[in-house]
C-alpha cells in the first residue's frame, strides 16, 4: 500500500520534473506579485537585520561606541536584530519561494495576487512597528515574544492573510496529490499562528506573560517552536521543492517524507524545556525534553537521507543552480545544528555550554546557516523564474553565497571557542568579569565576520532589485 503510494508520488514528482523544462510556457497571466514582494521584503530586511546584528557585535567589542543613544543600547538592538532575522529576513524569503511553488504544485494559480500584495504590505508594516516599538523600549521582555500586544496582533494577522490566500489556492487545485512541500507550508503557517498566539499569551494584552515558572515553560515551548514549527518546516518545504527540481529526479522516498513530516511535529514540540534544564521546573518535563531532543535525530536524519539520496550523484546539477547550491549547503548546516542541538540537551554538556556564546554559535548555524541559507536558496531559485529573465548577476549571488558560508562557519568557530572559554572558566570558579578580556578577541573576529555578512546582504538586495526591475538580460519568454 505504502509502496503503491510512494510510486504515485514518484510519478507526480517526475511529472513536475517535466514541467521544469516547460517553465517559460506557463500561463503568463501569473505575474508573481506576491512572491516578488516577499523577495524584496526578505532582501531589504536582511540588510537591516544583519546591520543590527553587526551593531550589537560592535557594542560588545567597544561598549561606549554609541554611548547614551538610548534606542541603540545593546539591550534594544539585540531583540530588534533577532526579530528582524526571524520575521524580516528568513520567513519572508521562505514564503517568497512558497508563493511561487504552491500554485505550481497544486496546478493552479494563486487565489489572489491582490490579497498577496496586501499580506506583503501588512507584513512590512508589522516589521516597521516591531523596530519602532522595540527601539523605543516597548517590549514584553520575553525572548522571541518581545513584541507588544498590538504588534502581536499584526503578526497573527499577517500569518492569517498568508494562510487564507494559500488555503483558497488549495481549494481551486487541479492536482489531487499534495506534494511534501505543501504539507510543510500549511503545517508551518497553521501551527505557528497557533503557537505564536499561545506563546505570546495574547489573552493577556498587558503583560503577554504568565507568572513564575509556568511562564518560562510556556515561553520556551513557544521559543523553540519558532525554529521547529516555523523556520524548519518552511525551509524543508523549499528543500523538498528545489532539490528534486534541480537534479530533475523524483523524490527518493515517499515513506521517508511521511515519517519526517509527522515525527517533526510530534518530537519538536516536546523539547522546549531543554532550555530550562538547570532551572527548577518539574523533573519529568526535563526528562521528556532531553529524551525527545535526542529523538530529534529521527525527523532530522529521515529528511536528510531523503533529500541527499534524491541528489545522490547529481551534485554537479546542484552546483550549477545558485538557488540549489544555497539550499544544499543549508541541508548540511541542518545536519550540524541538529546533531549539535541533540548533544546540547544533555545535562553534562550543558554544564559547560549553557548561558554562554556556545549557544549563540548554535543559534547562528541554525537560523543563518540552515534556515537563512535555504531562504536565500529558495529566493535565488525562484527569482529568475518570477522575473522571466535570468538572474542579474550570478557572480554577485555566488559572492553572497561564499560570504554567508564563510561568515557563518567563522561565527561557529569563534563563538564556540568563546563559549568553551567562558563555560570552563565559570566551572572552575572564575567570575564573569574576569573572563571578559579572554573573549574580547573572539568578539572582534565575530564583528569582522558580521561586516562580511552585512555587506553580502547589501549585494544580495542589489542583485534582487536589478533582477526584478532593471534587468538587461534577455527575457526568457
Amino acid at each position: 500500500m505504502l509502496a503503491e503510494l510512494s510510486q504515485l508520488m514518484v510519478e507526480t514528482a517526475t511529472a513536475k520534473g517535466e514541467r521544469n523544462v516547460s517553465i517559460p510556457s506557463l500561463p503568463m497571466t501569473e505575474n508573481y506579485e506576491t512572491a516578488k514582494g516577499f523577495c524584496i521584503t526578505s532582501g531589504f530586511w536582511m540588510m537591516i537585520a544583519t546591520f543590527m546584528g553587526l551593531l550589537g557585535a560592535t557594542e560588545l567589542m567597544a561598549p561606549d561606541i554609541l554611548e547614551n543613544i538610548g534606542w541603540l543600547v545593546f539591550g534594544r538592538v539585540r531583540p530588534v536584530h533577532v526579530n528582524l532575522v526571524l520575521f524580516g529576513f528568513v520567513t519572508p524569503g521562505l514564503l517568497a519561494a512558497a508563493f511561487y511553488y504552491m500554485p505550481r504544485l497544486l496546478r493552479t494559480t494563486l487565489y489572489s495576487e491582490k490579497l498577496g500584495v496586501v499580506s506583503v504590505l501588512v507584513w512590512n508594516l508589522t516589521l516597521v512597528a516591531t523596530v519602532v516599538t522595540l527601539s523605543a523600549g516597548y517590549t514584553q521582555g520575553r525572548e522571541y515574544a518581545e513584541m507588544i500586544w498590538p504588534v502581536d496582533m499584526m503578526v497573527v494577522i499577517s500569518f492569517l492573510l498568508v494562510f487564507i490566500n494559500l488555503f483558497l489556492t488549495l481549494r481551486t487545485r487541479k492536482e489531487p496529490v499534495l506534494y511534501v512541500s505543501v504539507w510543510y507550508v500549511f503545517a508551518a503557517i497553521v501551527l505557528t499562528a497557533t503557537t505564536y498566539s499561545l506563546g505570546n499569551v495574547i489573552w493577556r494584552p498587558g503583560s503577554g506573560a504568565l507568572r513564575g515558572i509556568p511562564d518560562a515553560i510556556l515561553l520556551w515551548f513557544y521559543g523553540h517552536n519558532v525554529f521547529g514549527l516555523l523556520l524548519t518546516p518552511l525551509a524543508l518545504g523549499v528543500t523538498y521543492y528545489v532539490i528534486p527540481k534541480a537534479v530533475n529526479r523524483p523524490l527518493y522516498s515517499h515513506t521517508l517524507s511521511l515519517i519526517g513530516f509527522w515525527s517533526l511535529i510530534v518530537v519538536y514540540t516536546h523539547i522546549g524545556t531543554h532550555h530550562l534544564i538547570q532551572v527548577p521546573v518539574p523533573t519529568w518535563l526535563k526528562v521528556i525534553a532531553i529524551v525527545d531532543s535526542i529523538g530529534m535525530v529521527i525527523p532530522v536524519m529521515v529528511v536528510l537521507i531523503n533529500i541527499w539520496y534524491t541528489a545522490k550523484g547529481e551534485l554537479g546539477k546542484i552546483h550549477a543552480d545558485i538557488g540549489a547550491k544555497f539550499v544544499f549547503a543549508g541541508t548540511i548546516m541542518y545536519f550540524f545544528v541538529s546533531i549539535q542541538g541533540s548533544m546540547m540537551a544533555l545535562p553534562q554538556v550543558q554544564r559547560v555550554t549553557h548561558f554562554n556564546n556556545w549557544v549563540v554559535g548554535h543559534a547562528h548555524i541554525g537560523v543563518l546557516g540552515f534556515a537563512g541559507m535555504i531562504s536565500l536558496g529558495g529566493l535565488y531559485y525562484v527569482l529568475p523564474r518570477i522575473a522571466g529573465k535570468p538572474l542579474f548577476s550570478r557572480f554577485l549571488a555566488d559572492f553572497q553565497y561564499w560570504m554567508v558560508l564563510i561568515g557563518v562557519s567563522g561565527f561557529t568557530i569563534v563563538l564556540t571557542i568563546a563559549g568553551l572559554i567562558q563555560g570552563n572558566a565559570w566551572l572552575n570558579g572564575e567570575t564573569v568579569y574576569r573572563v571578559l578580556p579572554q573573549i574580547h578577541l573572539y568578539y572582534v573576529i565575530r564583528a569582522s565576520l558580521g561586516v562580511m555578512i552585512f555587506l553580502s546582504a547589501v549585494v544580495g538586495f542589489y542583485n534582487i532589485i536589478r533582477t526584478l526591475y532593471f534587468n538587461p538580460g534577455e527575457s526568457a519568454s
Partner: protein
Amino acid sequence: MRMTPLAIIVGSLLLLFTIVFMVVVTPWYTTRNQAPSEIFRHRETPEAQGRLIYIENGCVYCHTQSIRTIDWGIGAERIAQAGDYIADHPILLGSERTGPDLSQEGGEHPDDWHMAHFVNPRFTRPMSIMPAFKFLGTDKLRLLTSYVQSLGMKDADARVLRQLYWKEAATRAYEAGPVENVRWLHDHVPEGWRILPNPYPTTPAGLARGHKIYQDFCFGCHGPIGDGMGPAQPFIYPPPLNFTILKNTDISGGILYYQIMNGITGTAMPYFKKDLESEKIWDVGNYVAVYFINQTDADGEPKAIDAANEPMDMPGEESSDQPPVGPDLPE
C-alpha cells in the same frame, strides 16, 4: 497514508494541542500553586517600577536570574528555587550570562556604587562591556537601583540593611578627617592581619602584575595616580580612598590584603575575593604600597622560609637569619 488538506491541517493541530496539554498545561497545573520560598517577599512600588525599566532596556539579554548548583559567582550561596519566582510576571530567567547572574545582587553593593556603575560601568569596573545607561536620567537610575537592590528578596534586604548600617559609620569616619578615617578603617581589620607584612618580595614582575590588576579592577575609583580621583569619584560617598594619606600610618601588607579581599561594606569598595586569587591580591596590594603610599613592608620581618620561587638576593636578605644560599648538599 494519503495526505489530504484535512489530514495536514486538522491532524497537525490535534497533535499540537495534545502536546500542549502534556508539556504546557500539565506543568502549569501542577506548579501554579507553588508555595513561596523562604526568602520570598513582594516588591515595593519603586522596585516594581525599576523592574519595568530593566525590561525596557533589555538587561535580560545579558543577565540571568537563576543560580545553578554549579555556580561560583555572585549569589552562589543560594540555589534558585521555584518559589522565588511566584510574583515574576514575566519571569526574567535570561538565557545568556554576558554579565553576572543578578538573582542575589541586592545588597552586594551600596546604592552609590550602582549609580556610578549605571552612569558608565567602566567607572567602577574598567573592563566591563555593559552599556552605559546615563541616558535614562537620575530618577530612572534610582528606580533601577532599588530594583537591583531588591534582587534576592529577604536575603537582599538583610544585606541592604547591613550596607546602610556601615555606610553611616563610614561616612562619619570620613567626615571626621583623614586621620580618624584611617583609624576607623584599620580598627575593623582583625589583629592578626594588621601585623602581617606582605610575604612576597617586591620584584619588577610582581609590580607589573600588580599594575595590570590595578588597571583592570581599581583604576575607575582610586584613579590613575591613586589619589581617589577616578571617573567614579563624583558619584561615590565616602569617596574612593586617596592612598597617599596612608603614608606613615600603621598600614601593612596584611591590612591592604584584608581590605582588598573583603571589601569595606557600607562603602563602594567591593570585595575582590571572588575575582582575584591570593597572589594577585598581594601583588596589587604591593603595587599600591610601592607606587601610591610610597612605603612597603613586602618581604620584611617577620618572615618565614623563602618560597621556592623567590629570588636569592633580595634587599633585607642579609639581615635574615636564613642562609642566603641553600645548605650544602650532603656528600
